[in-house]
């Protein structure tokens, strides 16, 4: 029996498989990976009636051009994405995010680009036919772990689809408000007092520019130099997603899902969990500001974030 699969006619900038992420391996140096934007990852699965932990295709900036072979499927794309469906008869349909579509054998999905964001997610009903490594489907390109030998997809690669029996999913839709915010909320880092009063003032009051050095590991920022009055090196220690490190050159780096598991630069702050999806979607050239919140505030904001995610998920029922 032949399984349905996507043939990759154009790979896109950084096309990988991602899910919730891979835990319990920080101590060997393996990051959590997983979808950069966890909310949009879940929404794409919900739109095609999958379990929320099914693997999805994550793409960045320019996405892939995919041709469906050997079957018929339902799919959905989440994010702020410009995409088209090219039917077998060459009829082109404009695609809408947060909406499920049916794709026939020979049809193509052309994910042209992300708009004011970096990442998007493609889910198919039934999920992809992949194997877990250490409990996750996520591709970790830094350690070459996961599907496709842990590498991002290239032209002519195939992504197999699990489900054999086609189930039509029509009219699934979420009215998602894709608004972005340039205020990033943080909690003081464990080396907050390494920085001068002037540096702290600048950190909270001046703009920081997202440079071109952005990937799944982290985001390098450019702004006023943050003067360190204690030491620009610390003994390497564990870091987590959202940690903001400041190396000796005074320019902060925000750590994302594929970050190094330990780091030796002082931590001025940590982005709160509720703002991680937002931070991950920031595009080069954007200016952001940091705002301090307490741990208690952060926990309340996270509850609101979870409630909001559930609201969108329930809307799709």
């Amino acid at each position, binding site marked *: 029996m032949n399984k349905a699969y996507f043939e990759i006619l154009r790979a896109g900038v950084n096309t990988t498989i991602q899910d919730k992420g891979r835990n319990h391996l920080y101590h060997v140096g393996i990051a959590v990976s997983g979808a950069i934007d966890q909310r949009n990852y879940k929404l794409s699965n919900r739109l095609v009636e999958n379990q929320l932990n099914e693997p999805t295709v994550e793409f960045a900036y320019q996405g892939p051009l995919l041709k469906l072979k050997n079957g018929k499927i339902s799919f959905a794309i989440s994010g702020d994405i410009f995409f088209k469906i090219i039917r077998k008869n060459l009829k082109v349909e404009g695609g809408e995010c947060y909406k499920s579509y049916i794709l026939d054998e020979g049809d193509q999905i052309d994910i042209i680009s992300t708009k004011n964001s970096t990442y998007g997610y493609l889910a198919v009903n039934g999920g992809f036919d992949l194997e877990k490594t250490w409990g996750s489907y996520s591709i970790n390109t830094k*350690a070459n772990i996961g599907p496709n030998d842990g590498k991002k997809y290239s032209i002519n690669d195939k992504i197999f689809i699990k489900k054999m029996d086609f189930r039509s999913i029509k009219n699934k839709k979420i009215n998602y408000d894709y608004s972005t915010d340039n205020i990033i909320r943080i909690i003081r880092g464990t080396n907050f007092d390494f920085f001068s009063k002037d540096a702290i003032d600048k950190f909270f009051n001046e703009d920081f520019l997202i440079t071109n050095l952005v990937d799944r590991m982290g985001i390098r920022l450019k702004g006023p130099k943050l003067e360190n009055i204690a030491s620009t*090196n610390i*003994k*390497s220690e564990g870091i*987590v997603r959202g940690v903001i490190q400041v190396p000796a050159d005074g320019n902060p780096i925000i750590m994302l899902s594929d970050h190094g598991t330990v780091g*030796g630069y002082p931590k001025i702050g940590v*982005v709160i*969990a509720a703002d991680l999806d937002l931070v991950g979607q920031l595009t080069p050239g954007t200016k952001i500001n940091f705002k301090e919140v307490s741990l208690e505030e952060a*926990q309340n904001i996270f509850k609101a974030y979870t409630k909001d995610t559930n609201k969108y998920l329930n809307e799709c029922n």
Partner: protein
Amino acid sequence: MVKNISNLGDTAVYCDFGSEVNETINSSVIDYFHHISKLIKDKKIEGITNLTPSYNKLIISFDLTITDYKKIKNFIEGLTINRDIKSNNQKIKIPVCCDDEYGLDFLRLTKKLNIDKNKILEIYFNKEYFCYMTGFIAGMPFLGDLNESIRCDRLETPRLKMPKGSVGITEQFANIYTFESPGGWNIIGNTPKKIFDDKNLNQPALVNPGDKVNFYQITKEEYLNWNE
């Protein structure tokens, strides 16, 4: 013993064992790591997603939809650590080629340390190192302690791409870049040996905390013909 517990953001607990780096403090961190790992496996505590032991810190990451800082902090404070865990520490030999195309930072090092390349290498190879931790990238060992005469600060701006296999030094430590990655250490050579093996699911890292490591120099020819 944990001297201080604080929060690292809203999804991690920061356990501070002190500021010094030595085998005694590090062993205490490793004891906590093994102890908590077992409690997670036995489902005695829920919501912990990762443990990151380092020289003198232990970071405990958790899922904020299941637990929170206060609960994990109380759990850590209530622990009695059992120190009986025996580890199977190994002695490992690792080949390094230090030709100039692999030893990327000798210019910087000789300038900063005021010692010539041969002397740096002589001092470097003439020592057995202790593995304090693994991390940053998969399987990267953090080894110590370097002889005081070859200790040097990290690069001011980290390199965007450190070649796989690069052998680095910074401060009192030595390491190996097991994958191509950004990094800030001074590179003195490159090893052809596989330091991380993802096919070995139970113990993917060649070097683990508590192990002893000896480096030895190989020629470029030996490097290029390396076969495992």
